[in-house]
């Protein structure tokens, strides 16, 4: 079963919750998640952010749920790194 190791998302979010709140909410989904969030554009009511999430098995559906709950929306999945598990010799 392949698992996602790294994913880069283009996210549109309101000013509140701020970048720290959103990144913390995503990181709290799993103990091994590492989240890097960079604000790349600021508008009157919204911000565009590049969100990089790294982990042993990144759960996209859960991340999408958290971003949606915080009022954000995923515009695109820009980068994904997926690793396949070793084939069972038997």
């Amino acid at each position: 079963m392949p698992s996602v190791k790294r994913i880069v998302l283009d996210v549109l979010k309101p000013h509140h919750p701020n970048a720290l709140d959103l990144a913390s909410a995503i990181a709290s989904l799993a103990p091994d998640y590492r989240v890097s969030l960079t604000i790349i554009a600021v508008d009157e009511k919204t911000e565009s952010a590049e969100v990089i999430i790294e982990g042993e098995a990144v759960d996209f559906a859960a991340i999408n749920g958290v971003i949606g709950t915080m009022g954000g929306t995923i515009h695109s999945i820009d980068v994904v790194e997926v690793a396949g598990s070793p084939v069972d010799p038997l």
Partner: protein
Amino acid sequence: MSNWIKQLAFLLYITGSRGIARRYVVVNGFDGALTMLGLIMGFHASGEVPATVAVSACLGAAIALAVSGLSSAYLSEVAERRKALRELEKAMIVKLGRSAHGQATRLVPIMIALVNGLSPLLISVLITLPLWLSSQHIPLPVDPMSASIGVAFGVIFLLGTYLGRIEHSFWLWSGIRAVLIAAVTSALIIALER
């Protein structure tokens, strides 16, 4: 319970409503305290008014202030929150009804209304307490009307010091400033009663 409080604090934070709630505590609390002070000063100046009559009048006014605070804050906050949500949805080009912003649009007006309604009610009850104790024939070391007036001045002083803390000014001066307003109000009532 603590998760609930955290969630409510989060909703107040994302809507920028903490300052509004704080303002309502002071504004309507001050309203409640001054209204009670005015009523009790009026009773005091007009002579012998039974404690039961004074308690009924004060509680009636307190309930009216609470209902007025609840309903006016709820109606205005619902309108403000819905407008803010519509504008945010327009900017985000998505529906936010299920997000924290949607939840805040539903819950924040209720929280603000409770603050706006309970603040004058609790302060009024506190000020009326000595009169109520007297009406229940519980002996007090001082005259109940004077005690209620004293409590009213004390509460007004505390509200003033709270404002001083918010604006980072000298708390004692803020408290004295609020007490001066109450003193002028009392003087006006006494002058008009004569």
